[in-house]
């Protein structure tokens, strides 16, 4: 059974990530009173990009994209997607925390090789933004680990199934709110779309990607969305007992994220960091203190 999940969960992440990419375009189109592209438009785009020829800027340019894509797939292996996680016994949340940084790092490595000023600005913004949401995110994860006394995502899900889900229980509700506040930043949507700002720095780190590179970067983007949302569902909303329920829960969180995306304009990067380090950090800190003093 576990062997099966090794194959199934990356495939599910890929499918759901691409579905989310298509749905987000459709969702935004409907909010703007347009018809919008078909749901499978990302598939068409990726097929088109894979059949285009593109230049490479050197070995690191190739390897960086592969690194970030591979690390995203490995993070997915740690997630119980409504079942058991394939890698549940090896490191849990600590490994996820570490591996999640490899995604932006791989893109940074690869983009740095291209020596395009737009790419450099995009990368520095991406790292600044990552530092911005990583601080409250660490506090949230610390609070959860202290509360449940474990670093395994699977055990946290199981503990929530016995009692209430974390976001509905007293001290952890603060962590839940803080996670919801940093979710748009983790997904990279507006108001935190500072990294790939197309009108401003010509899509930032992806500016030099064409053809297959762009296809891989698009898939990686879909996986990042999948990871951000599924972490919330697993850690704070009690996971699910089967993949279908899990997917439905993810859909709700996704709708929230893209409602925010449609409603707000883009912040400047220092405004984004100022926001991230004020309210979400404060709330996550209160949550952490409460968990540490009151406990279970």
């Amino acid at each position, binding site marked *: 059974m576990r062997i099966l999940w090794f194959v199934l969960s990356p495939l599910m992440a890929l499918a759901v990530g691409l579905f989310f990419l298509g749905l987000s375009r459709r969702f935004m189109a409907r909010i703007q009173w*347009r018809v919008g*592209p078909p749901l499978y438009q990302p598939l068409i785009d990726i097929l088109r990009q894979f059949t*285009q020829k593109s*230049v490479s800027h050197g070995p690191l340019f190739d390897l960086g994209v592969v690194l970030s894509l591979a690390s995203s797939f490995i993070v997915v292996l740690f997630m119980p997607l409504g079942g058991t996680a394939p890698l549940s016994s090896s490191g849990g949340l600590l490994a996820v925390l570490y591996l999640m940084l490899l995604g932006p790092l791989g893109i940074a490595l690869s983009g740095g090789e291209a020596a395009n000023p737009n790419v450099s600005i995009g990368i520095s913004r991406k790292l600044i933004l990552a530092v911005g949401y990583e601080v409250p995110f660490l506090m949230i994860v610390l609070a959860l680990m202290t509360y449940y006394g474990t670093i395994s995502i699977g055990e946290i899900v199981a503990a929530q199934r016995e009692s209430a889900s974390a976001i509905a229980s007293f001290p952890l509700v603060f962590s839940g709110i803080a996670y919801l506040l940093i979710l748009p930043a983790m997904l990279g949507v507006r108001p935190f779309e500072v990294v790939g700002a197309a009108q401003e720095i010509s899509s930032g780190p992806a500016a030099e*990607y064409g*053809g297959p590179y762009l296809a891989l970067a698009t898939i990686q983007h879909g996986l990042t969305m999948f990871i951000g949302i599924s972490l919330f569902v697993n850690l704070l909303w009690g996971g699910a007992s089967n993949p279908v329920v899990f997917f439905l829960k993810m859909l709700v969180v996704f709708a929230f994220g893209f409602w925010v995306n449609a409603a707000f304009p883009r912040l400047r990067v220092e405004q984004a960091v100022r926001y991230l380090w004020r309210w979400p950090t404060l709330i996550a800190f209160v949550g952490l203190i409460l968990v540490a003093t009151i406990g279970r």
Partner: protein
Amino acid sequence: MDRNQLMKWIKAPTKMAHKYSLNAVYFCTGCGVIEVPPTITSRWDAERFGVVPTATARQANLFLITGYVSVKTLRAIIRTYEQMPEPKYTVGFGSCTINGGMYWDSYNTINQLDKYIPIDGYIAGCMPRPEAIFVAVTHLWTLIDKDMADGYKRYRKNYAAYRANQEMILGEMEWPPIFQTEVATAITEREG
């Protein structure tokens, strides 16, 4: 539109993908560009046909040159065109790109864009309405279907001639030829 016909997807997946995922880079030189914003936003919504604007040349496969081309922008247009990954399609927008339009005797605009980069199709008019862009896109679909949108192949084949034309207008160009051809011989042949 045959986007929903599964058999065509199975028969020629790449061709279909190129048809229905036209990522356009707009070269906003002339007056014609004012028709592009309504085309891509809520009023005409080009995204429902898969036509979306992209920010950089590397991500694009459709090049729209919207209007007259001055000598200075020609240099940027050539660089942008050469940076786009193949296969790529170009569409000239408005009569200025066809024969110079109302600028044909101007001292600093070029008249025939097709001499410098290969153009797959033109949209006539001064200026064309957004509907004309959609007509152009459907024509481009037909051309791709029949393998007739082969500007990038023509560019590769006749690169020496194109480069010679470019150098005649721009003088010394600061980047080397992108294909290995005898540009010098082409120039001498023409002049001698």
